[in-house]
């Protein structure tokens, strides 16, 4: 079959050009689906990053005993930083803490004027992994010179569950889009093949094996799939840059410095697009052709 390979390849290429309507339709549909999947992926990546940055704002306040010396206080800071799961640890002098309390009260703050500062010195600790939040709190409580630990474990658990919810939803939505896309693509290919069933039947009646017929169709599918993947990458890139630029103002209001850079994601997307496109094209045409390639069973089946 060495001679055939060249022919089959040329034939696949020729098909792409010859059936322009079909090619265009297949590429368009695949392209649309990939763009949707890619967009969903980027939206969820950003959402995750956003939740992450909110998480970073969830801090543990560690109040230092009034009785401890400056040295002891510093020692405590070192010990906290040495703990696993501690990402940052910042010293907050009591004056600053009091001022923050007052600020939090807004314009009612002046009511506190003249009151003695009842607050102790403190450390502001952020954790790396929210899921081990409680353990970290426990560890800190066991250190020397700790007066009391203030933590918002409620918010922490909320954020943790929000994050896992976002992850589940992202995976769910992308999986759904993938399924829907495969469904749409396979239907498009089925219809395309249907319109070429005559051709397939003729080839069979001249003595072509199933694989000889399949090859050019599969190759055609692969080429179209890869083309659609490349186009989708370009489209998603363009749209993402445009949208993230126009949303920049909004994101900064929400406390984020901007959308994630596309350059961090282009290779994942491209790889995904090419794999999906390639497989959809190859496997899609492989399966949707099956029906038209079938030979009649031997004697007897016509009778029922």
């Amino acid at each position: 079959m060495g001679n055939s390979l060249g022919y089959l390849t040329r034939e696949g290429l020729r098909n792409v050009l010859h059936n322009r309507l079909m090619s265009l339709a297949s590429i368009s549909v695949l392209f649309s689906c990939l763009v949707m999947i890619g967009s969903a992926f980027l939206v969820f990546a950003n959402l995750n990053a956003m939740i992450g940055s909110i998480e970073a704002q969830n801090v543990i306040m560690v109040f230092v005993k009034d009785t401890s010396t400056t040295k002891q206080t510093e020692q405590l800071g070192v010990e906290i930083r040495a703990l696993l799961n501690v990402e940052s640890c910042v010293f907050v002098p009591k004056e600053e803490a009091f001022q923050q309390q007052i600020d939090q009260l807004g314009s009612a703050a002046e009511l506190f004027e003249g009151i003695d500062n009842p607050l102790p010195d403190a450390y502001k600790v952020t954790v790396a992994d929210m899921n081990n939040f409680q353990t970290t709190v426990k560890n800190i409580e066991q250190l020397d010179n700790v007066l009391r630990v203030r933590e918002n474990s409620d918010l922490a658990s909320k954020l943790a569950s929000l994050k896992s919810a976002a992850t589940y939803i992202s995976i769910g939505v992308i999986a759904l889009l993938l399924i829907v896309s495969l469904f749409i693509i396979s239907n498009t290919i089925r219809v395309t093949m249907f319109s070429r069933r005559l051709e397939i039947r003729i080839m069979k009646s001249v003595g072509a094996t199933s694989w000889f017929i399949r090859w050019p169709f599969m190759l055609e599918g692969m080429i179209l799939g890869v083309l659609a993947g490349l186009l989708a990458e370009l489209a998603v890139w363009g749209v993402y840059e445009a949208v993230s630029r126009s949303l920049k103002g909004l994101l900064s209001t929400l406390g984020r410095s901007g959308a994630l850079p596309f350059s961090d994601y282009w290779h994942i997307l491209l790889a995904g697009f090419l794999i999906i496109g390639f497989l959809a094209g190859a496997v899609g045409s492989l399966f949707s052709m099956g029906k038209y390639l079938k030979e009649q069973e031997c004697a007897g089946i016509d009778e029922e």
Partner: protein
Amino acid sequence: MIEFINVTKKYPNGTVALRDVSLKIDPGEFVFVVGASGAGKSTFLKLIIREEVSSSGIIKINKYNLNTLSKREIPYFRRTMGVVFQDFRLIPSMNVYDNVAFAMRVIGAKEKDIRKRVTYVISLVGLSSKARCMPNELSGGEQQRVSLARALANNANLIIADEPTGNVDPQMSKEIVDLFMRLNEGGATVVMVTHEHSLVRCYDKRVIILENGSVVSDGIPARLAPSEPAKPPAVEETPGPHPKPYLPRRQGTEITDIPVADLLAGSGKDGGR
């Protein structure tokens, strides 16, 4: 060798197209199949090429038993024959050249051999100037001749032709049958369905007459004619002063300028097989 033993073909919609047909065609024979429209001629051929499967009975083609032929073997089985289809079956997206070449490509012939052989068979059917045309740019007769050229491409030694002369003028019809005769002389078995009884009468070959799915006559007309007075109108209704079939008059047929002489020698070394 083609052997039918009590073959019946019933289509899914209930039509019985062939009824208990038993016959044997020896290697190297030339057989005409005639019969009225709907008599089952095409069905007979479709069974031979295993496009349809018999409802009952046994069909053997050369070394293949079609009742036990596995699906995997079918393509290889089909390559042992050249088929001219009644509805031409040209691939609409390929031009004339590629349609003919396709039959050689499926068997993995070398591109060089293909070029030689295809150019040759296309010239044989007089379509050299149309080699780059698409099927929908051809007249009915031209399409039929492409189908013929494709059947010849592989130099198969079993030729199955379903009305290969239905869309061409009488002169060309004669040329086509003469071409088949040459192939036959070279050893090929030829089974040809035709309506043109005047054509059949020119040759002293076996004629199988189908009527309503059954074989009603089988033999060489000149020898049959006196012995079968009961069923005369099936072939001999054509107007004219000839009450019985012509005797063979091979010397009277005009062979045209188409170079059929070297067909069997064939360029392209037996089609690359």
